[in-house]
Structures are given as structure tokens and as C-alpha cells.
């Protein structure tokens, strides 16, 4: 049970729902108090781009009217739980800006399937969360509306691109948030902020209504402070959606095997990842420690090779920009989005609107993608990148013939300072351990395992599983949680106390 006076945003889903079922508090009280805490505590943090007070209170009041204590168990897995959404997810009547000037005044005319599914499960939508512009980045520094701060250290980035989602959960503003991950955008910020972040297998969660970046790589997933909360959220959002033809049926209850332990499970370590240039000593030490503790808990450790994973970063920075170039062609200053005023011909309106509407990193990736797909260049980069994708996918399939789960670093180091990564190519290396799993499509997650010995900042280890067997990595994560304890609320940022 939560301590008396614990702010609702710092409770777990189970704690909130126990209190709601026992009528210690109502959904309205939870929503109103959470909104008040966000409006006060988020001013310095800047995790939220919009607080959706009316939508939250309406959802909470509808839940209160619908359920009495006895029926609460049927009200949905997320009934009464305040949830925040990355601002690339449409929720009807809210702004969906992608943290870009291009969409500053865009109001969603519909709701993304992943958001709708949380609402059907009883979630209370409290707001939209900051991100790198169009998800291009690893720090939220490319947000057109200013960065989010890391709740553990305000001089450092929260990671990205789903930095607002990770920071809001780490600061105790919400128990659950949704993010999206194209090359590490859930796992790297989860690692930097010390929370659980899950990128499910590609196809588990519908992408309908989530503004597209790399359509063959993007996947939506949850952030939470406990593995069970992440599993509950995953239960709510996964499954086939007629509006996304890549989404697959899913009948797994991801909470079912969390208490089973790891005895008899085979956990793989990738030696080349552990020896990678750029991996910090403190993160490496934490991954080794987690491996040893899993072994002590009954898991069998095995070394496995992913010989082609070293090509993943270059393959990703070919495929990602190519898909982004194609997806961002839709911003035409005519149907929606920023339109530069005063032009007498359409061509100059296009050029001025896209120049002013898109930030530098977005323009860089659009132009890079255009170049890489041009005649004569396509054969040199794009086509080989898709061939490399075959090799990486086969590597993972062979690895998962030998093991049930892989254990690796999530990010090469703990949270860096604002402005520290000045060169684009240097920033791109933040995702060196996360990208290959997006290329293959498998699920991966970051699990907090305490603080780094040198920096004193959160470290996440990455767990990866066979395609459509995401329950494997969650089961290992639950064991790590029993060993290390649930993710703490960032100590300097206990919102609402």
C-alpha cells in the first residue's frame, strides 16, 4: 500500500486501483490532484507540451459515474490511471505538435488507436508530452518549444526522442506514459531517467494516428516505474487494428509470468556489445552486475554473436531518413500545418513554409533521405541497407534459437549535459545498442538497475526478446526488479510533496 499522502502520480497502477476500489478516493480526485501537481511541478521540468484538463476530468467523471466499488475490477486495466502521451499521438481535440513549429496549431480531428485503447481500458488522459521534433533526436533538444530537463539532474538531457514521456514518469507526475521508438527513442530516455521503457515487437501495437517517422521501424510502447505497470499498459495497447495492416493479433497477458522467476531461462550476452568503443565503464559494470545477479537467480548465461549488428547504425541512418523524407513530404502548407503568409505563387509558399516550419534536424534528414533515394545513389546505400537488414534479422533469429532473452547496455553512457553532443554523427551514436533491434523488428526494453558508480545517474540495461515473445524480456525484467527494487521517483523531483 502506498504511504499516506503519496501523490497519485507516484503510486503504481495497483496502488491507485486498490484505493479507487476501496473508495478511499474517486477518479475525479485522482485526476484533479494529478493535474494540479503537473501544472505546478512541470513548469521547470517541461515534460508536458499540453495539459488536457477538460479531457482528463471528463474521463474521470465518466468513470466515477460508471463504476461502483464492486464493478471496479471490470472498469479496465488502466481504470482511473492518469496517462500522458507523446505529442506525436493524436487525441481528438488536443494539439498534436510533434514538438514542431510545423504543427504548432494543429488540432487532432481523430484519436490514434494506441491512445483510444488506453481510454477504453479506463485511462485518464492528462496531457501531451515533449519530444525531439518529429522524433528526430536523442535528447529533446530539437523540440521547437524548448527541451525537457532530466528530473535527476536539471543540467542534463532526459534522452529522446520520447524524453517528455520518460521524465514525466521519473518525476512522479504520471504512473504511465506512452512513447514511440524508431531507433531507441523509448529505451534510451528510459535509461537516462531510470524508468522502465518497452519497445514491443514491430506489429504488436497499431501505428494508426501516430505521426509517422520511419514506418518500417516505428513502434509505440509504454513507460512506467514498475514492470507490472508497463505490462498492464502493453496489455491495453497491443493487438490487431484494421487501420494498420502491419498490426498483429495478440492474446498474451503480459502480467501472467512476471512472478515466475528466471530459473532455467537462457540469457544471452553479446561480447561485441560489451567491448564496443564508446561504452562507458560504469554502464558496462552495471550490465555485468545484472548478468551475475540473474545467474545467481537461476538463469543460464550464454555468449551469443550478432556478427552483423555493427552495420546497424549505418543501415539505420540510411533507412530512417529515407522513410522520413517520404513521410514528411505530406506537409504542404495547404491542408494543415504551418503556412507562410503573403506568397503569390504556390512554389514560394511551399519553400518558405517548409523552411520555417521544420527545424534544422528535420530539414537535414529530409534532404539526406532525398539524396539517398535519388537515381544512382539508391543502389549504393538504400538497397544494401535493406540487404544488411536481412543479415541482422537472421543474426537475431539464430541468437534466439540459443537463448530466451538478450541482455545488453541500453545506452552507452548515462545522461549527458545539454549541448554536449554538438555533431549530428556523435549524437547518432547514443543509439548504438538500440538500433539493431528496430532493424530486425524484435522487442526490446530498458530496465533500471540503480545508479552508475561514476556519474551517480540512472543506468538502464536492455533486454531483448524473440519476435512476438515480448513476455520473455518482461519476465527477466521482473526478476531484475525484485533484485534492484522498483524504479524510484527522481529524488530531486518529488512532485507534489
Amino acid at each position, binding site marked *: 500500500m502506498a504511504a499516506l499522502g503519496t501523490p497519485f502520480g507516484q503510486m503504481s497502477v495497483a496502488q491507485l486501483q486498490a484505493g479507487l476500489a476501496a473508495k478511499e478516493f474517486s477518479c475525479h480526485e485522482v485526476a484533479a490532484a494529478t493535474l494540479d501537481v503537473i501544472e505546478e511541478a512541470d513548469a521547470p521540468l517541461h515534460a508536458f507540451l499540453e495539459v488536457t484538463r477538460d479531457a482528463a476530468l471528463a474521463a474521470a467523471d465518466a468513470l466515477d459515474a460508471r463504476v461502483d466499488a464492486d464493478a471496479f475490477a471490470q472498469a479496465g486495466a488502466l481504470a482511473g490511471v492518469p496517462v500522458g502521451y507523446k505529442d506525436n499521438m493524436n487525441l481528438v481535440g488536443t494539439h498534436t505538435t510533434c514538438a514542431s513549429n510545423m504543427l504548432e*496549431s*494543429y*488540432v487532432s*480531428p*481523430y484519436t490514434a488507436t494506441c491512445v483510444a485503447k488506453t481510454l477504453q481500458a479506463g485511462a485518464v488522459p492528462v496531457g501531451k508530452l515533449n519530444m525531439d521534433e518529429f522524433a528526430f533526436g536523442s535528447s529533446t533538444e530539437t523540440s521547437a518549444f524548448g527541451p525537457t530537463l532530466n528530473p535527476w539532474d536539471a543540467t542534463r538531457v532526459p534522452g529522446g526522442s520520447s524524453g517528455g514521456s520518460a521524465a514525466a514518469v521519473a518525476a512522479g507526475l504520471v504512473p504511465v506514459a506512452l512513447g514511440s521508438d524508431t531507433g531507441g527513442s523509448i529505451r534510451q530516455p528510459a535509461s537516462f531517467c531510470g524508468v522502465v521503457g518497452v519497445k514491443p515487437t*514491430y*506489429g504488436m501495437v497499431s501505428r494508426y494516428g501516430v505521426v509517422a517517422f520511419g514506418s*518500417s521501424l516505428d513502434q509505440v510502447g509504454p513507460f512506467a516505474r514498475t514492470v507490472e505497470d508497463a505490462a498492464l499498459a502493453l496489455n491495453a495497447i497491443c493487438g490487431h487494428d*484494421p487501420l494498420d*495492416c*502491419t498490426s*498483429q493479433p495478440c492474446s498474451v497477458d503480459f502480467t501472467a509470468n512476471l512472478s515466475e522467476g528466471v530459473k532455467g531461462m537462457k540469457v544471452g550476452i553479446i561480447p561485441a556489445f560489451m567491448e564496443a568503443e564508446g561504452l562507458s565503464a560504469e554502464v558496462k559494470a552495471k550490465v555485468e552486475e545484472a548478468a551475475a545477479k540473474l545467474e545467481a537467480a537461476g538463469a543460464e548465461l550464454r555468449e551469443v554473436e550478432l556478427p552483423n549488428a*555493427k*552495420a546497424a547504425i*549505418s*543501415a539505420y*541512418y*540510411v533507412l530512417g531518413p529515407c522513410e522520413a*523524407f517520404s513521410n514528411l513530404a505530406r506537409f504542404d*502548407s*495547404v*491542408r*494543415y500545418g*504551418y*503556412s507562410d503568409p503573403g506568397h*503569390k*505563387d*504556390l*512554389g*514560394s*509558399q511551399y*519553400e*518558405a513554409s*517548409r*523552411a520555417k516550419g521544420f527545424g534544422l534536424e528535420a*530539414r*537535414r534528414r*529530409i*534532404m*539526406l533521405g*532525398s*539524396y539517398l533515394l535519388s537515381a544512382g545513389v539508391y543502389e*549504393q*546505400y538504400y*538497397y*544494401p541497407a*535493406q*540487404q*544488411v*537488414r*536481412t*543479415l541482422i*534479422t537472421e543474426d537475431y533469429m539464430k541468437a534466439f534459437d540459443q537463448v530466451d532473452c538478450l541482455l545488453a547496455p541500453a545506452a552507452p553512457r548515462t545522461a549527458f549535459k545539454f549541448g554536449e553532443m554538438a*555533431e*549530428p*554523427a556523435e549524437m*547518432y551514436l547514443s543509439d548504438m545498442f538500440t538500433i539493431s533491434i528496430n532493424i*530486425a*523488428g524484435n522487442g526490446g526494453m530498458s530496465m533500471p538497475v540503480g545508479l552508475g558508480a561514476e556519474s551517480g545517474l540512472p543506468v538502464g540495461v536492455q533486454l531483448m526478446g524473440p*519476435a512476438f515473445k515480448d513476455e520473455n524480456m518482461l519476465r527477466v525484467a521482473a526478476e531484475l526488479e525484485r533484485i534492484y527494487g522498483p524504479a524510484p521517483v527522481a529524488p530531486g523531483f518529488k512532485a507534489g510533496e
Partner: protein
Amino acid sequence: MTQHLTESEVRGIAEYTRIGMTEDEVAQMTVDLNSIIDSLEPIREYQLDGVEPTFHPIGSLSNVMREDVEAAGFTQEEALANAPKQQNGSFLIPAILGDGGDR
């Protein structure tokens, strides 16, 4: 650093992608893109003869069809709600040919 792209080629890409750029921006973008393309070189050094490409993680999927039944979509008003300019129920754009003259 290898010169993969000249400033003139970058100007051409800007035109094709409909992104207006100043000369200074073209110069900086040329440096940035050449540096990024340099970092992509490992992809060209791979021995890939006979390897089939994978264009999508769910490779077994093709031509997913739905039943051909009517479903509600946006109303005209909803479709126009985010339009920067509209007139008589349509998106309003400046002239496509020429400068359009004064209106």
C-alpha cells in the same frame, strides 16, 4: 572527409524537397550532409552478393485487404478544420502558374 555532395547539388535537393535555403544554410548543410554520408560508408563495404533485401520487418505480409464496406470518414468541415486558408468549402492556395497577379 569525402566530398559526396557539392553545394550546387545541395541546392538542387533543397529545390526538390521544397525547402527554401539561404546561401549560408546551403554551405552549412553541405558540410553536415557530407559528414553524415561519410559515416554511412560501412554499408557500402559489405559483401552482399546474393543477399535478398528485407523491406519490412513483417516480411510475410502482402496486400492486406479489408471488406469493401462503407465506413464514415471526415466530414468536409472536419477535413478543412486545420487548413491555413479555405474558401467555399475548399482548400485555398495561391496561383500555381505564374505569380497570380494581384487579388
